[in-house]
């Protein structure tokens, strides 16, 4: 048995092999560290790119967004301008007239009130009148929901 023990004892890893193995382990260690760093930086860059693409695509939405205001703006822009007889008329809030000032009915226009309402197929009918003693090419009156609004031509 001692002979067998001695025989097994004689098998030894050389110092050179130990050193080579140590170097290889350290090399492998560095490779793994580098790989981990690469994975970290690549994922960081990819995340940044994704965020940039997201911001680029949705930047318009963010710019237009003000709480409870976008809906109003759309409505306002739509109601502020009227196309009649190939001319563009804009609302003139400074002038208020009553029914007596209306001269003759020029046209009836059916309009979508706003985007939201259009989905519900809600539309409103507005009547366009000329105003007494005023050239219709300069100013018109619009009767909408029993309100009279004055529009002037937009030059």
């Amino acid at each position, binding site marked *: 048995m001692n002979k067998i023990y001695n025989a097994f004892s004689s098998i030894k890893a050389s110092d050179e*092999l130990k050193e080579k193995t140590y170097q290889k382990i350290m090399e492998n260690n560095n490779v793994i560290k580098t790989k981990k760093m690469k994975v970290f930086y690549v994922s960081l860059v990819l995340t940044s790119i994704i965020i940039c693409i997201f911001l680029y695509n949705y930047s318009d939405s963010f710019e237009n967004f003000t709480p409870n205001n976008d809906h109003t703006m759309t409505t306002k822009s739509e109601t502020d301008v009227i196309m009649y007889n190939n001319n563009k008329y804009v609302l003139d809030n400074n002038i208020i007239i009553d029914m007596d000032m209306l001269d003759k009915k020029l046209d009836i226009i059916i309009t979508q009130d706003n985007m939201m309402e259009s989905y519900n197929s809600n539309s409103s009918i507005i009547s366009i009148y000329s105003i007494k003693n005023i050239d219709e090419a300069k100013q018109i009156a619009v009767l909408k929901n029993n309100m009279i609004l004055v529009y002037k031509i937009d030059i």
Partner: protein
Amino acid sequence: MLNMKENDIKETIEKYSNMIFRICIMYLRNNLDAEDAYQEIFIKIMEKSPLFANENHQKAWIITVTTNHCKNILKKRTYYKTITYDENINIPINDKEDKEILSIIFTLPLNYRNVIYLYYYEGYSTKEIAKILHKRESTVRTWLKRARESLKILIGGVFDE
């Protein structure tokens, strides 16, 4: 990688180098293959290196990793039919008598020489060997008995239980 620091790596290499190299030689019977396997096993050990309850636990784990790795190499050899060892068994030993005894041991079937090594050299009991090799204790005892019988015939007077 690693759960180990540089000093721990050096210490582990120093502590288990010979044992791992012996097992590699036992399985592969070829110095060059054993050296390659030895390096790969150390890299594997350093990469995984779980926490151990004690030193014996670590040693048993390293033996299991080493035997499994060597078994995989032997499987690949069979698969690719690239038997690299020669009949003279290439072991870097100067002592003639030791070399002769090892050459006889290496003629035994793999399981027998493995059990002989773990029992006589590492001093494990048959129960512990069974645990390390994932075999039944009775199987290990049978292997050990047959290995002894074979060695008695091959070595003759040299082998003494």
